[in-house]
């Protein structure tokens, strides 16, 4: 999980900064889907997580302050509520997340089976020092994730939402090289 950026979006001058202009949400491509989600629950707030998933996918893998404000308006919650969710749940990004999002599992089983080398490989390919930082060329975001539930085929990696198992550093290199 990448709480490293927990404080993202919170700056000392927040009080005087211009609030973001909310996007008009939901855009027509996902309107039906979002409206459908809302009907499943007795409260609008309950739709937050599934709607944020849909929104993150639609907006290129992350939720900008403008989208955050748009979703907040749509679901009738404050935007700080949405930001609270974005910074609590590891799968959401509140900063640009590269063209490819790479999750490397770091938890015990994967760690026993070579996760440390996988992380180094991924960071090297991305050209960054630490997880949770978008690569300078905007290509990758490597995230250190906790157990992905694929332990029987550890070590596990996700690239753009697709699981890859029994990954070796060589295999990971190939997979990342294949990314545009």
């Amino acid at each position, binding site marked *: 999980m990448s709480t490293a950026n*927990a404080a993202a979006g919170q700056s000392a001058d927040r009080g005087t900064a211009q609030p973001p202009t909310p996007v008009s949400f939901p855009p027509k491509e996902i309107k039906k889907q979002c409206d459908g989600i809302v009907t499943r629950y007795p409260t609008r707030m309950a739709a937050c997580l599934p709607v944020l998933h849909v929104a993150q996918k639609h907006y290129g893998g992350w939720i900008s302050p403008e989208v955050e404000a748009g979703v907040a308006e749509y679901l009738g919650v404050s935007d700080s509520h949405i930001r609270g969710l974005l910074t609590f749940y590891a799968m959401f990004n509140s900063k640009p997340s590269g063209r490819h999002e790479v999750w490397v599992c770091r938890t015990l089983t994967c760690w026993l089976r070579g996760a440390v080398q996988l992380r180094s490989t991924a960071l090297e390919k991305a050209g960054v020092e630490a997880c949770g930082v978008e690569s300078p060329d905007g290509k990758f975001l490597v995230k250190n994730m906790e157990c992905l539930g694929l332990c029987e085929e550890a070590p596990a990696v996700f690239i753009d939402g697709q699981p890859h198992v029994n990954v070796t550093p060589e295999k990971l290199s190939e997979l990342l090289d294949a990314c545009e």
Partner: protein
Amino acid sequence: MADVKTVFINGVEYPFDAGQTVIQVAHENGLDVPHYCYHPGLSIAGNCRICMVEVEGDAKPQVSCKLECAPPPWVSEPLRIQTESELAKSARAGTMEMLLVNHPLDCPICDQAGECHLQDYSYQLGQGQASSSTAKTKLPKNVAFGEKIVYDAERCIKCTLCVRFCEEVTETNELNLGGRGDEEIVIMSSKGEFETDYSMNIIDICPVGALTSRDFRFKSRLWFMDFADSVCTGCARGCNVITGGRNGSMMRMEPRHNADVNQWWMCDQGRLDYRYVNTPTRIATPRIKTADGVWAAATVDDAILAAAAALKAAGGNVLVDGGCTLEEMHLAQQLAAALGGKATYAAATGEADGFLRVAEQGANAAGAELLGLARATKAGAAAVLVVERDANVPQALRDGADAVVVFATDADHVPASAQVVFPFGSSAERDGLFVNTDGRVQVAQRNPGIGPDNLTPPYELLEEILGELDAGYDWHGRDGIVAAIQAQPAFAKISLPAAQATAEVGATS
């Protein structure tokens, strides 16, 4: 289910009301159980874990803010709680240590020092191992929460009181938690400003120095200040407050709990309103207009004599600020009678906000009505004018009065017609009684640390002037004044607290 109606705390049996928690009963009975995330006016979060107590027979300590006094249905004996047993103390010390491991140990430069519960309890419990070499987590400091409040996430202990306040009391939801685990912080809506005008209450309820008032920050160390119980005169709600001042300046105003008036809260406007008290144009001494038209400083005695002389010549009405005390208003009536005129009061009308703030701005308008003063709605002649604030007695009324004797706080509020000027204290500097919008009599106490030195109380000045008018007025002193008010038929059902009363409220009508 057995009907257990008592709980033993440290071996003493106490009764409790249905639904009451152990911490409530402990506090009601003067037992000190530390707490951070508990506030009687907010929902229970049970997250800080500092209020743990031992329940006899239970190896696990329990949080007393959540623990009901009523035992579980299958138990027919009262619970036996220990707040000072080894287990209770070590559990709390353990929590304390955890809180301190990431807390900056910079009390000497922290604004909360002196009223920080973390500091208090850490002295009580000892600092344990927290000062060990473990590096502290870095979190944002100096974050603006709107224009009035500054947040320091490193000092914050994530008790969520501030978040719950905005959720439950004002229902404006500006604050939320962000991040996770030990990087959790309080975040604010991107609008960057509070919708509610009650935001500064979060500064009061924050148990540590994580939320500070931009207004008060670094102004004064608490232990240099004087405090007094008073009421806010910002509107007719009359929120109970504590004034804080030092060397003549008013430093701040904080709400004081009163379940029937303001609970634990006050509005920001009322809180920040005190700043008029410190205006550079404060009048500190009486003044008499000389032949060449300047107001020269005078002794109190000379001013009293001059005022009496001027009034004997002029006669007429008395116009007082709706924020005057009952005592002052009563004497204004006596004075008007002696001068053959009428006493009226002036007060502004604002907007009610649906919570505490009411439209009536005259803090004692209800008192004035009880005394039988009419409300001045338009400018009219008055020989005597009492102005505490511009808001209640605006310039048109002041100029229109053509008054010869003026009581005022601010030199800018003295009309050109004044022959004699008396310094009038702000509400923080005067003792007296107020009747709020609900007819509740409340006591304001003078804070000795605020205002010019040796300020003569206005009721004394008024009595002295009355005495000089040869109208047969006997000097009463404050007790006598209150007794005289009490004797009026309008006050038959109201019992006014004795003048020396230090109690927070009197009775309602």
